[in-house]
């Protein structure tokens, strides 16, 4: 019963979040601020993780292709498709759930326990909309850019690994990343990214917004935000994959 209650509470919060903004100019400023905070500040970690992921995928594919009948360009193809289909969308979303989700939950939780959210409500501001909507818009707008960066950097990381280790020639790798490219895979990755961005920001905001108590509860809310965001991301990964690729 508690799960149904929490889901109901989540959707009631969303109905408040998507109410008409009080003053659009103030919201625009907030969106820009959130793009900086949630998006631009995540570029570094996305680049580092994607480069190493691409390199590892390439090396693992190469070391597991012992059959001489398999063409060597499959290493590049495997790296490209793994990055597009799963790693740059789902893995990066899970990492961002940890980084961005905990940050959102602790920010809102601290605002709740220090009565800053009450102060907004007293002024007549729709605090849910003012605090959460810019985060959702910023993430939904910017996470596809992060995914694109991740795909490019991941494939580049794979190529660097090829150059550094010589597991396959650079020419074969480049042929592989160009071979049998299906543009719909990019659409699939972007659709997943947009869903995951919404899940990360809304689920984490939900946990932060309704914190009761003090600093310990803020910490707990932050942990819950990461755990529940990750679970919902994995669940929707299965649903979206079945819907889009079947």
């Amino acid at each position, binding site marked *: 019963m508690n799960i149904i209650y929490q889901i109901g509470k989540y959707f009631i919060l969303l109905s408040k979040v998507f109410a008409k903004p009080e003053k659009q100019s103030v919201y625009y400023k907030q969106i820009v601020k959130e793009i900086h905070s949630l998006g631009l500040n995540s570029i570094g970690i996305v680049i580092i993780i994607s480069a190493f992921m691409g390199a590892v995928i390439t090396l693992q594919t190469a070391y597991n292709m012992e059959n001489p009948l398999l063409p060597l360009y499959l290493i590049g193809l495997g790296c490209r498709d793994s990055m597009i289909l799963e790693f740059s969308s789902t893995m990066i979303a899970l990492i961002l759930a940890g980084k961005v989700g905990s940050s959102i939950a602790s920010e809102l939780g601290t605002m709740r326990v220090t009565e800053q959210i009450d102060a907004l409500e*007293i002024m*007549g501001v729709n605090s849910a909309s003012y605090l959460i909507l810019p985060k959702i818009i910023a993430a939904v707008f910017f996470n596809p850019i992060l995914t694109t960066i991740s795909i490019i950097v991941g494939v580049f990381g794979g190529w660097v690994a090829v150059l550094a280790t010589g597991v396959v020639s650079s020419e074969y790798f480049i042929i592989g990343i160009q071979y049998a490219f299906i543009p719909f895979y990019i659409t699939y990755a972007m659709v997943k990214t947009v869903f995951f961005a919404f899940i990360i920001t809304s689920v984490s905001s939900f946990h932060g917004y309704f914190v009761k108590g003090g600093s310990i509860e803020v910490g707990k809310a932050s942990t819950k935000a990461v755990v529940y965001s990750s679970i919902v991301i994995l669940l929707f990964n299965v649903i979206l994959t079945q819907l889009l690729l079947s």
Partner: protein
Amino acid sequence: MIEAINISKSLGNLKVLDNISVKFDPGKTNLIIGQSGSGKTVFLKCLIGLFDPDEGSVMYDDVVFNKLPFKAKKKIRQKVGMMFQGGALFDSATVIENIMYPLDMFTQLSFQEKKERARFCLDRVDIKDAGHLFSAEISGGMQKRVALARAIALNPDYLFCDEPNSGLDPKTAILIDALIKEITEEFNMTTVVNTHDMNSVMEIGEKVVFIYQGRKLWEGSNKDILDSSNEELNQFVFANNLAKQLKKMNSDI
């Protein structure tokens, strides 16, 4: 005018407020006093709409505030200024940005006009040079002043203060009290202050409401307190030896 009529409120199984009715004097400094846990903060939150009372009505100028839909409540809330116990300043904004926030949200003033208004409010609470600092960089007393400046930025009709003196030294507490009273008179606001500070009661309590275990036990002016025969009120107000002697002197006269 603000009036609470038969307000009752329970939190879980605990009845926190039991049938409280109070009419606050317009244009004056009204105090809600009581021990910690007596229900005065819950009562204040019912008055400003952060809690919905289980029973009863909160009236703002003959409008039943707690029965209004969200949008209609917003209009009244824009006439309300609130000074929270901990200041509730936005910690990611500077002092001047905190004060400009309600102006940004609810006025069409230019940036320069908003800045001038914010500076006026800061000046009014005797802080001139702290505008560029973040709330974590200023003292507790200054945070209270900034909270007061933000509360009056929109020139509200009603000012609510929750424990404005908590955590302050006696001298700063007196200054904050004096400031609240001055601002109430200057802007002709109806002010409701939640406190357990007896100095505030004696200095600024034009009307005092005493809440004990969720019930209103007494109301009157600060001068009436000295003559009150209410046992719970006397035990609360004259708890220390100095206050007891004051009461005894008053009785002897």
